């Protein structure tokens, strides 16, 4: 999957399903502090990612992920074009 497609899918579910305001969705946005994603929202994001990208997020692999860009990097590492 191409990077643009990953970013577009993530942006879309953040707006539609997590109800993040579109104007806040920028690559450097902090998931928790800027986008307001809390631990319960993250439980839902695991479900949404599995549905959209076909893999299960492992919490231990997300340890260093703080920004939206890093989150897309992580997804790309799993499903990106090699």
């Amino acid at each position, binding site marked *: 999957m191409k990077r643009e497609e990953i970013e577009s899918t993530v942006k879309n579910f953040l707006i539609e399903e997590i109800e993040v305001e579109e104007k806040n969705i920028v690559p450097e946005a902090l998931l928790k502090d800027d986008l307001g994603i809390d631990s319960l*929202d993250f*439980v839902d994001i695991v479900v949404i990612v599995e549905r959209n990208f076909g893999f299960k997020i492992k919490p231990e692999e997300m340890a260093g992920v703080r920004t939206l860009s890093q989150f897309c990097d992580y997804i790309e590492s799993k499903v990106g074009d090699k």
Partner: protein
Amino acid sequence: MVRRVVITGMGIYSCIGKTLEEVKRSLYEGKSGIGVDNMRKEYGYRSPLTGIVERPALKGVLDRRLRVCLAEEGEYAYMATLEALRTAGIDVDYLEKNETGIFYGNDSSAKAVIEAHGVAVAKKDTTLLGSGAIFQSMNSTVTMNLSTIFRLRGVNMTISAACASGSHSIGLGYLFISQGLQDIVLCGGAQETNHYSMASFDALSAFSIRTDDPTKASRPFDAGRDGLVPSGGAASLILEDYDHAIKRGATIYAEVVGYGFSSNGAHISQPSDVGCAAAMERALANAGVTAADVDYVNAHATSTPQGDTFEAIALDRIFGASRPPISSTKSMTGHECWMAGASEIIYSVLMMQNSFVAPNINFETPDEYSRKLNIADKRVEKNIDLLLSNSFGFGGTNSALVIKKGTTQP
């Protein structure tokens, strides 16, 4: 010191209306809210009849985090509570500054449980159930959500007492306030109406199968009754200490003056005239009134052959001499189960406020027990100063409430 307890707010979301005004009109006109749910046919129900309750659209109204945790019955309860708080003149700012409790009746959240099970079976991975599943699945889903949404900081618990849940919630709110433990308690009852919720009840062949004429199916006390019609929604009431209400300048809709309860201690589903009568007698004694003082009885009568018979025997034993008008509003609403004991207080208070007894529709032919009662087969224009409302449930749990007309007189 025992304090007086008044009803200062009411909200309803039901198959006969989604506002107090709409519900009052339905009660006055004897309008039924019963229809057919085709999903029930596909699911394998013996009876597809149900109260038709529209699901509220809460996207854009309620924040996502709050919505995700709310099961269907919680959505109904949220809508009913909005109206109850509005009529009570209470806003979120007030709730943040003043301790308010909640006792709410609920006894299932089947859809949330079954849908989570479906995901678990398909995915074999519980981390894919999502964050809302647990908060939607527990019996206390309504109280945990309403207390979070409305910032309630007083007593907080769900009352699960089968089809008497809503009535007991009001009884307990009344006791907590009268004992001085709380000044305001949100009471009520909620009932899901999705096609999962009533399958195991349908398994008992307790539902009417008069599908050719749904609005005629619920016929409490009528000789031709063939079972109940399940229904649902939610009903919320604001119970308040009388002096607190006066000080706040609140409208007093009615006063809760008596609560009676009993347990049959017998069969799990068979009703008992002795148990029903015990709850009514205790409620009258608690109110310090006699049966002759009661102007109207809102019967539990669900339209099952057995249940209505035993209630009729008990009603005749207690009210046989004074013969007040009796009606079962379930003839219009169907059986609102966990919600019924609360909604029927609202229906009764609306009648009290507007001086009429709503008809027990479809009561065409009395049977040997109901012919002894003064059942209102048509609307009766009548002043009501005092009423009694019955609720009975599986396991033999019985509840009766005595309500007096609202007054600002000390």
